[in-house]
């Protein structure tokens, strides 16, 4: 029995040191600074080391949470990281962006009194500790099997599959459409939430393990799935949900109206915030409205503010329905983001040069719950108003890109353009082709994409060991 189970319950969840709102709203450095070693150990010592640990069952990749926390409590960090990495190849990422409050931490027995263990922060602590070590522990790689797997897309799903299969001795090639790997981790989630060096580090690690990486390669265009299958024994498609939605309201193609993808890509992938040092231009806007209420919307609005604009969220329901992570909503509020709840844009107004100058909105009220279980917003007649903006970012959602479905024979596609794949194995309707992540589920989370990658790599490995057994 561990010593602290006999101790008095410590319900004091250790806070995360952060940059002060007044400071951070003007810079792109990471907001959360990470636990110092002593605090991490204190936090770890609070864990009750439950025998039947609920927390584990609510982690999509079933990390052995009590065990890695115990290792931190004992300051045995290298064991800790090993335990983490058994199940999660991107702990530095998940520790930062996982919606822990709905997953592992939600299920912690200490949650009732608000003292749930900060599992995500501890995960991040270990990953950051490892990054500081000069000697990186390399995993064992099984002897080459001579089999080759093509992985389409370098997002979390694809990276997971590549990492798993290379260790099993298979040859792995990642084909990525953009010039950088990481998918949304690179081009979407901003620097102040997920520093890009972390993503690059993970990619470098895969390279060291022997994964071949081919960037600037659009599968379906540069080469079709069918053609690649002539050369590869198996293929995993993790091409994400990159096709942005617009609202189809008048004036939406005016200059100054961006999709969240464009706005964030200019900033992250193309380093627009360093313009003109890097050459992709980004406008200096004064009043920016971001439409939507999810993580993507929060990232856009906080980016806009960091570029010096008065930035607001326009959301058609109320605060409690905001789908973004609570932590990010609170961060945004602290930074002084304006929230216009129960508000729906209906039209954009432009100036004589085709630039957006105003937005017409209508007030909403909440009616009965809809199919998503959230109360349905209903427009209030006569409540239309116009206010000035000089930029709008539309962050209302994405669906899978049709390039691969359109160019591949026999791949079963769902009604949202998603690839249909078996939930347990990731198998698609096409022999030797697996899929997982956002391209299957629609826009979801990093950890779910990784979980899908994990299941698929298991199934791919089985197949490669006894080919012909589809």
């Amino acid at each position: 029995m561990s010593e602290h189970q006999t101790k008095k319950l410590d319900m004091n969840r250790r806070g995360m040191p952060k940059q002060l709102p007044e400071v951070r709203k003007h810079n792109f450095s990471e907001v959360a600074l990470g636990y110092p070693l002593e605090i991490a150990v204190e936090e770890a010592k609070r864990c009750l080391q439950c025998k039947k640990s609920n927390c584990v069952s609510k982690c999509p990749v079933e990390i052995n949470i009590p065990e890695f926390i115990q290792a931190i409590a004992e300051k045995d960090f290298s064991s800790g990281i090993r335990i983490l990495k058994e199940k999660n190849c991107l702990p530095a990422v998940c520790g930062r962006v996982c919606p822990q409050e709905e997953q592992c931490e939600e299920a912690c027995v200490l949650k009732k009194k608000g003292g749930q263990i900060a599992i995500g922060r501890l995960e991040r602590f270990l990953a950051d500790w490892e990054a500081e070590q000069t000697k990186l522990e390399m995993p064992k790689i099984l002897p080459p099997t001579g089999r080759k797997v093509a992985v389409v897309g370098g997002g979390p799903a694809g990276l997971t599959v590549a990492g798993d299969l290379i260790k099993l001795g298979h040859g792995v090639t990642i084909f990525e459409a953009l010039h950088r790997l990481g998918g949304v981790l690179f081009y979407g989630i901003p620097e102040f939430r997920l520093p890009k060096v972390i993503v690059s580090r993970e990619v470098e690690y895969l390279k060291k393990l022997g994964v071949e990486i081919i960037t600037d390669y659009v599968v379906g265009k540069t080469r079709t799935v069918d053609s690649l299958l002539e050369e590869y024994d198996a293929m995993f498609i993790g091409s994400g949900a990159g096709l942005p939605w617009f609202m189809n309201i008048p004036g939406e193609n005016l200059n100054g109206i961006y999709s969240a993808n464009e706005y964030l890509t200019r900033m992250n992938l193309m380093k627009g915030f360093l313009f003109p040092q890097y050459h992709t231009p980004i406008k200096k806007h004064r009043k920016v409205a971001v439409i939507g209420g999810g993580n993507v919307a929060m990232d856009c609005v906080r980016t806009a503010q960091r570029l010096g604009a008065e930035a607001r969220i326009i959301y058609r329901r109320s605060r409690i329905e905001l789908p973004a992570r609570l932590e990010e909503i609170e961060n945004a509020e602290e930074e002084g983001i304006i929230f216009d709840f129960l508000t729906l844009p209906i039209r954009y107004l432009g100036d004589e040069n085709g630039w957006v100058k105003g937005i017409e909105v209508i007030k909403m009220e909440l009616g009965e719950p809809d199919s998503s279980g959230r109360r349905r917003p209903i427009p209030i007649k006569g409540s239309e108003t116009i206010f000035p903006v000089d930029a709008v970012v539309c962050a209302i959602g994405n669906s899978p890109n049709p390039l691969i479905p359109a160019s591949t024979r026999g791949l079963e596609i769902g009604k949202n353009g998603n690839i249909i794949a078996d939930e347990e194995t990731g198998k698609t309707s096409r022999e030797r082709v697996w899929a997982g992540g956002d391209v299957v589920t629609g826009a979801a989370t990093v950890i779910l994409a990784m979980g899908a990658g994990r299941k698929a790599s298991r199934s791919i490995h089985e197949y490669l060991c006894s080919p012909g057994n589809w």
Partner: protein
Amino acid sequence: MHKLVESKMIVPNIFLLTLEAPAVAREVKPGQFVILRVEEDGERIPLSVADWDRVKGTITIVLMNVGYTTDKLASLKAGASIPTVVGPLGNPTEIDKFGTVLCLGGCYGMGSLFPIVRGLKEKGNRVVAVLEARSSYLFYWEKKFEEISDRVFYITRDGSRGYPGHVGRLPEIIKFSGESVDRMIINGCTFLLKRGSDVSRESGIKTIVSLNPIMIDGTGMCGVCRVTVGSSTKFACVDGPDFDGHQVDWKELLQRRKMYLEEEIVPLRTSRCEEHKKESR
């Protein structure tokens, strides 16, 4: 990395680049483009593929030097390495047996038009090529066009070669030539596309234009390339770049192309197309 095999200025401000890009060369069809990045962390720009050699694994691009990235690219010497050349992107130009096809090209569009003409000839069409430039010294590849097309006409703003004026002369040319045109295909700057479409609208000739809005990824991810065609919004990189010129919302496209003008600290010579606009008014 892609090696620049050859680079030369073929007429003032227009460069012919041959690049190693075997994956693109293997698949490319007339009317498709690549996205190219000239330096790490540089901007991504779309460029049409004007020719290719599937055996050697090279592609040819006709580049007009208009701004920062195109200038960088134009200044590279043979042997230089280019970090990104991705493609072929966009849908190929529809090539079928149409009858008589009038192919209209200007600036870099004379280059991207060439493989389309070749494809149309292979399908047994009669091809009338019309090339337009400010002055006679700005034409290139005339020989290639003359060898392959059934007829070639020239229009110059200053009258130094062929018909004086601009594409407004097209109806006369068609009438004079006695051809009955079944389809028109236009490649070049936006003003040429627009004016060409205006002209053919009156005569009801179906007109396909290769649009060139601002792009980033070229795969349908960012939506910056959106254009209004008919009453719906299309992404030019995946739904196009070819569209029915009579359905395109030209005003919107011209405005969207100017989105970053201020930031692009455009050197004087970039205003070639702007000049064109003023002159053609």
